[in-house]
């Protein structure tokens, strides 16, 4: 007796559905963008920990500036690079709340370098999510601090020349050296196992706040199909081959 699809699609057989913490708004990201996956995982974790009423998110300037449209929590949209300072202000004045910042590489590792390092060094008891795709997505594909050597971008059209443009900046390794950080990890979201690991890391980071452990810092090595000028599947393969050797996945610090 063959089981029909309609016999499987029943409420009692549901194993995965969009979390109710995500709004009905259609994401503005390009097809295949890693932001969508990470946004979703953050929503899922907040939902599963049942901390919706106690979470305040800080969005950056960059592609994820409009992240506040997607998750049903209170939000604060920061100036370019200033999310860690904004998060500090919120957390210091509402220490019982769960606070997280969400930034791209230009935001966190270029214009906001000072705010990033000092928030981590003070051990602000919050989560900092760092999406690293090695390019400025929103402004149209310019070189980022994390752009790989030889990688092309609109402001290094012949590839990043370290003699001229300097070296890719590994912010995650830097913040791991600071005593204020309690958990520093580098993850990805390109495969189902990677997504499961990333979700676990996010959950741990929120729980660290409850235990007042200090700054949790999660880098997500990500793709930018539009900026890289590849389709999403090619982007993932390119990321594995080129980004992962420079930005290797795994926990860097866990105290």
């Amino acid at each position, binding site marked *: 007796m063959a089981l029909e699809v309609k016999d499987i699609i029943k409420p009692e057989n549901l194993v995965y559905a969009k979390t109710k913490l995500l709004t009905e708004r259609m994401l503005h990201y390009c097809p295949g963008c890693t932001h969508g996956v990470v946004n979703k995982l953050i929503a899922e974790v907040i939902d599963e920990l049942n901390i919706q009423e*106690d979470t305040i998110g800080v969005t950056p300037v960059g592609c994820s500036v409009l992240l506040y449209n997607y998750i*049903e929590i*209170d939000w*604060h949209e920061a100036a370019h690079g200033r999310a860690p300072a904004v998060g500090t*202000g919120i957390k210091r004045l509402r220490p019982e709340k769960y606070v997280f910042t969400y930034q791209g590489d230009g935001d966190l590792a270029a214009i906001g370098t000072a705010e990033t390092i000092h928030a981590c060094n003070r051990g602000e008891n919050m989560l900092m999510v760092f999406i690293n795709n090695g390019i400025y997505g929103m402004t149209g594909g310019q070189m980022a601090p994390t752009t790989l050597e030889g990688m092309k971008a609109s402001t290094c059209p012949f590839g990043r020349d370290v003699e001229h443009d300097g070296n890719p900046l590994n912010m995650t390794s830097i913040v791991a050296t600071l005593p204020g950080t309690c958990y520093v990890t580098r993850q990805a979201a390109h495969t189902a196992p990677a997504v499961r690991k990333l979700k676990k890391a996010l959950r741990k980071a929120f729980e660290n706040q409850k235990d007042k452990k200090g700054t949790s810092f999660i880098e997500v090595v990500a793709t930018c199909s539009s900026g890289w000028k590849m389709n999403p599947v090619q982007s993932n393969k390119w990321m594995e081959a080129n980004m992962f050797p420079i930005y290797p996945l795994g926990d860097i610090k866990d105290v």
Partner: protein
Amino acid sequence: MSELRLMKGNEAIAEAAIRYGVDGYFGYPITPQSEVMETLMDLRPWESTGMVVLQAESEIASINMMYGGAGCGKKVMTSSSSPGISLMQEGLSYLAGAELPCVVVNVVRGGPGLGTIQPAQSDYAQAVNGGGHGDYNLIVLAPSSVQEMADFVELAFELAFKYRNPAMILSDGMIGQMMEKVELKPQKTRMSNEEIAEKYPWATTGKPSSRERNIITSVELDPYAFERFNNKVQAKYKQMHKEDVRFEQFQCEDAEYLLVAYGSSARICQKSVQLLREKGIKAGLLRPITLFPFPGVELEKLAGQVKGMLAVELSAGQLVRDVRLAVNGKVPVEHFGRMGGVIHSPEEVVEALEKNFLKG
């Protein structure tokens, strides 16, 4: 209980902030205002009122920490001096764009550049014109005594919350550093988180199921919606001009010549009025207390009475522009000012008035 003390203007700001029930101070050291944070750190208000005091890594971080705190509906403030205030302009534009209340104290020193640590009023134009990018204004209060340094903390917060707009206390190195007798108000209780959630329904207090999520933001990509927003902000500024212009008049009733000065310059100009009157010249002084909203209507009235006005400022001619705009050519308006940290004497002002209006 209120209390009489002899203190510096900068110390008075810190004391008044604690007593008013400010929730958070974020700052970065810079002369001539470092006593504000030093006093706060010494008084340890986190142990008494629960006020947070944090030394940030820069003025940029300070203003953005305030941005976060203000979004939570908290009473947050910072203080700095001219070069530091320049660094805060981006954040102030965001705070104004997100319609958040906060208080920034600028203990002005002479510029441009690193300039001097001596007093000046050369940040007037920056303060009254918003200072950062976009069409916005700060509420600007100009204390001319240590007592007003203390009192204006409360006034600045009241106005900032009334209009959901950043307020600036525009002081200078003279008022910040000088010592005077101050009456400090009794300690007020800080507002509880529950009171904040009720009183400021826009604040990021954590989203309960009973309301939509609150989003503190200054971005709006729909030009028509953003023009509507800008119109709303401009309407607030109009309302400020109707309801919250503050100024002080000194011997204006029969004045034939009017000095216009604020802050430390106004203190000196009181003496100049005395000296002028001793010489038989009927002089008066109008001291704007709110530099934005500016007491233009009052100046326009006085323009029908006096033969000339002299804007006296520790800057190259910034205040004088607002005076001229207000009187719109009805009477001659001249400028006298010293720069670079030099403070004018009462006699110099007398001379300037005589030279401009009475000789030749």
